[in-house]
């Protein structure tokens, strides 16, 4: 696979990652607590910025870690069975996203273990320092690992086929694009927008986001299946 196609797959995987909403929910709650507690705007910015950096760092670490494991296991010549497993994982997660991602109730409650949701809720309330917000950002990504594992796995498989320099570029591209939704909400909150409007938009469009994430995973699986499995079998590459 050539470098532009590889980066396109990494970008699509990152875009799917960006459509998952746990970190955005935690950021919204964190901002609500900070504004409600009458903290200064500078402190609100410090907390939310630390949170966004924490989420970004954890995404980068997870992608690098999965890439390292795959590189160690298969080198840069990944067997087709692993590509097929990756496609299967994408389709499986896509179906799970369509069926379960949001709970069938009011609000934006996600289908993640209630213990993790409760923990994040409590920690959000208790967060006063930038370091705690940074840790919360790290935990937010881990809390959604059941869903983000699929795009992360596929992006890692593609990344390890690239020359070393382009692997670093790929990791940076993935991290930046996967942070898009979080960055937009962070900018909106930082510029003084109303949290109620942000949350209302998220609730009104939650089923669209759910559908888009699932469809994105299916498209990614289809593209990879055609280029890496069918393409190799019939000799396109």
């Amino acid at each position, binding site marked *: 696979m050539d470098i532009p196609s590889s980066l396109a797959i990494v970008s699509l995987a990152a875009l799917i990652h960006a459509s998952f909403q746990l970190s955005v929910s935690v950021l919204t*709650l964190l901002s609500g607590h900070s504004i409600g507690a009458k903290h200064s705007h500078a402190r609100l910015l410090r907390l939310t910025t630390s949170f966004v950096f924490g989420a970004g760092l954890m995404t980068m670490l997870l992608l690098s870690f999965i890439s390292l494991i795959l590189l160690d296991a298969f080198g840069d010549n990944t067997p087709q069975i692993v590509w097929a497993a990756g496609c299967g994982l994408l389709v499986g997660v896509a179906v799970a996203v369509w069926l379960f991602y949001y709970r069938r109730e009011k609000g*934006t*409650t996600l289908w993640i273990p209630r213990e993790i949701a409760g923990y994040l809720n409590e920690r959000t309330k208790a967060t006063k320092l930038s370091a705690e917000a940074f840790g919360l950002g790290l935990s937010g990504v881990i809390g959604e690992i059941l869903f983000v594992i699929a795009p992360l796995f596929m992006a890692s498989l593609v990344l390890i086929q690239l020359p070393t320099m382009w692997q670093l570029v790929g990791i940076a591209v993935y991290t930046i694009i996967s942070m898009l939704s979080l960055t937009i909400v962070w900018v909106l909150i930082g510029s003084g927008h109303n949290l109620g409007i942000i949350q209302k938009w998220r609730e009104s469009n939650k089923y669209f986001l759910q559908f888009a994430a699932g469809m994105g995973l299916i498209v990614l699986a289809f593209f990879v299946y055609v280029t890496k499995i069918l393409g190799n079998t019939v000799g396109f590459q």
Partner: protein
Amino acid sequence: MSLSVDVVKQGGKRQTELFMRDKLHASIVAACLSVRAPEGQAESIAHAVCDAVIDWLQQHPEVTSQDIRVVAAKHLHIQHPQAAYLYEQHLITI
């Protein structure tokens, strides 16, 4: 100020506690400030909502924290619909 009303906590796992007006007041103020309402307006809305909830509590000696939330949200909705929305969303965001 505390009224002698037992509040059963969410899920019934923790001990009951006496109703505390200050706690409710703070949560209403926080919801109003979160939707960028001015501080003075947030305080006066919180006073009005707390008064309404206390009136309701006079006829209910034992309630759950969720009951208080529902009644407070209903009265907050009259005063500031956006703050009421965010107040209701608090536990159903994640």
